[in-house]
C-alpha cells in the first residue's frame, strides 16, 4: 500500500537524524581533544542501511508475487551503530583524537546534511505543486 508520503521521504528524514547524531558524536570527539585516555567515537550506518534497503548486489531481488515475504524497509526501527575505535596503547598526556580527521568528518557530514535537507525540501515543494495544480 502506498500512502501519501513515499518511502524515500521517510528514509531521507531518518538519514538526517543519523547525520545529526554523527554530528553530535564528532562534536564530542572535538570537545574531548585534550581529555587523556579518551577514545574517538564513530557512528557507522551506511553499509547496514544499504543492505537493509536491498541495494547491495546480493540483496537485489524483485518480488514476483504478492505472497512473497516483503522486503520493504521501514525506517522506524533502524539505528546507527556507535563504537569507539580500538586503541592498544595509551600515552598519558597525548590525545587520541585526530583533530584534522574530525574536522574533515564534520565538514563532510555537514555538506551531506545540507544536501539531504535540500532534497527533502524539494520533494515537499514538488508535492505541494502537484496538489495545487490538481485542485485547479
Amino acid at each position, binding site marked *: 500500500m502506498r500512502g501519501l508520503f*513515499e*518511502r*524515500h521521504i521517510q*528514509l*531521507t528524514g531518518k*538519514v538526517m537524524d543519523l547525520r545529526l547524531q554523527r554530528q553530535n558524536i564528532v562534536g564530542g570527539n572535538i570537545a574531548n581533544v585534550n581529555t587523556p585516555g579518551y577514545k574517538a567515537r564513530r557512528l557507522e550506518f*551506511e553499509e547496514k*542501511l*544499504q543492505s537493509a*534497503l536491498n*541495494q547491495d548486489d546480493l540483496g537485489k531481488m524483485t518480488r514476483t508475487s504478492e505472497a512473497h515475504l516483503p522486503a520493504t524497509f521501514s525506517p522506524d526501527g533502524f539505528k546507527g551503530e556507535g563504537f569507539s575505535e580500538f586503541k592498544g596503547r595509551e600515552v598519558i598526556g597525548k590525545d587520541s583524537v585526530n583533530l584534522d580527521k574530525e574536522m574533515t568528518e564534520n565538514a563532510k557530514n555537514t555538506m*551531506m546534511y545540507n*544536501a*539531504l535537507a*535540500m*532534497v527533502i525540501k*524539494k*520533494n515537499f515543494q*514538488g508535492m505541494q*505543486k*502537484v496538489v495545487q*495544480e*490538481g485542485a*485547479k
Partner: protein
Amino acid sequence: MVVKSIAINAYQDAMQTRGREIRDTVADRLRKPQESAGGFGDTLKDSLKSVNDMQTEKRVLIEEFASGKTQNVHELMISMQKAGMAMQMTGAVRSKIMQSYKEIMQMSF
C-alpha cells in the same frame, strides 16, 4: 528520314517509360514505411509512462544518495529537477485538456 525519326522517337519514348519505371521502383524501395501517427490516447499514455519512469529514477537516486551508496550530488539534483519539470508539464497539459473538454461540453449543436 521521316521514318527514321519516328523510329527514334518511339525508341526514346520506350526508354523514357522504362527509365520512369525504374525510378519509381527505386523510390518505392527507398521510401521508409510510414509510421502510423498514433492516437492522442497513445501519445498521452507514452508521456505518462516516461514521467513515471523519471519519478522512479529520482526515487532510486535519492535512496542511494541517502544511504551513502553514491556520493553524486549533481546527478541527483539533475534527476530531481527533471522529474519535477516533467510532473509540472503533466499538470499543465492535464489542466489544458480539462479546459478543452469543458469547452466541448458547453458547445451547442
